[in-house]
């Protein structure tokens, strides 16, 4: 993987380390990054995007803790073997938590009761 595959928006409300983790998650989910693919070094990412290396380390550390990446001795970070099957339902649900919180917030702002929102969501999930 090349450092240019990441897009950094420094002025977005979302911290840069979260932007990186989110993009890694998407690149892996979409298959653009496969098991064992090597990640660019912290220095490469920091240098390419002119961002603080600590931010990149923090993102990689978080992605490692989530099981997205694994540290290979002497080689750096690589995409971890997919553990989707071995993750419990609760672990997988926890990955959705930020989006669910966001959805709940929007629903409240629009003063929508739970029922129609859940109905719509159920239909989307069944598709």
């Amino acid at each position: 993987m090349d450092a240019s595959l990441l897009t950094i928006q420094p002025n977005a409300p979302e911290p840069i380390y979260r932007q990186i983790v989110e993009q890694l998650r998407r690149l892996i989910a979409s298959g653009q990054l496969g098991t064992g693919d090597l990640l660019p070094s912290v220095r490469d990412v920091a240098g390419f995007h002119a961002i603080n290396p600590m931010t990149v380390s923090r993102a990689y550390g978080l992605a490692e803790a989530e099981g997205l990446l694994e540290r290979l001795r002497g080689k750096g970070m690589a995409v971890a073997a997919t553990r989707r099957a071995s993750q419990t339902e609760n672990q997988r649900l926890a990955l959705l938590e930020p989006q669910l919180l966001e959805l709940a917030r929007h629903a409240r702002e629009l003063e929508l009761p739970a029922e129609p929102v859940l109905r719509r969501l159920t239909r989307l999930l069944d598709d």
Partner: protein
Amino acid sequence: MNAVLKETAYAAAPLAVHGLTHSYEGSSVLRGVDLALEPGSVLGLIGRNGAGKSTLIRAMLGLLQPLSGSAFVFGEPALKLGDDAKARLAYVPQQPEALAWLTAQQMLDYVGRFYPRWDTEFANRTLERWNIQPNKLLAKLSPGERQRVDLIRALASQPELLVLDEPAAALDPVARRELLREVALRAGESGTTVLFSTHIVSDLERVASEIAFLHEGRLLLRCGVDETKERYARLWLPAAKSAAAPAQALSRRRHEDGSLSLVVERDAHEQWPEAAKLAGARLDALGLEDLFVEIAE
């Protein structure tokens, strides 16, 4: 006990000030500033024009005597800094410094001799990349070019402490990105401590590990960049609900229709104020620029 702890922390900090006040012709510029930098951190200093940023930087480095308070560089009193400490720091002011009768090349060759870790190759390469004619007298360069030469001088000396006052003003976007890259990598890899002031918030969001927001001579906010983004948000309450607004807010603005905008903070349990859950209330995450505009208005 506290005082002892503080003394020790100050001795370890590359840069530290305590209770700094200053005024020009009777009007207060600094109204009691406490600030210390951890080794290897990149602190972005932000504030409106006239907030006192340059004065604070100059006082921190001992380049002006404050009305009251103390300043330390590498644990030494800033006003009586030894040559050894001076060789470990580099400062680029907004206004170019002296030696205008030399060419850029002559100046860099000359000052390079005073720094044990001078990087000649970097100096020559960057002169070319930043479009400085090496044989032109410094006096004949534009103010922007002069500041670029000063930045090259500062970086080539490979300082342990790098202090930049509004470095972005002199640079086009490409050179600015190069400077940020240098700052970020040096802090991350060589442990260089960096203090820089800027009004370009996105620069700061790229490389700073922390921000300090100076407003009317006081530090209004001192926080990690990521933490700031995650900890503060703008809460908007419709007029009918504005009475339920939390008492604690960093800023509070009433709109013409009676609705209310507040900058609110998560509590110790990571929760937003109760009012954010009211029907019709809206909570928006803020980039740093929006946050500062909200607070400084």
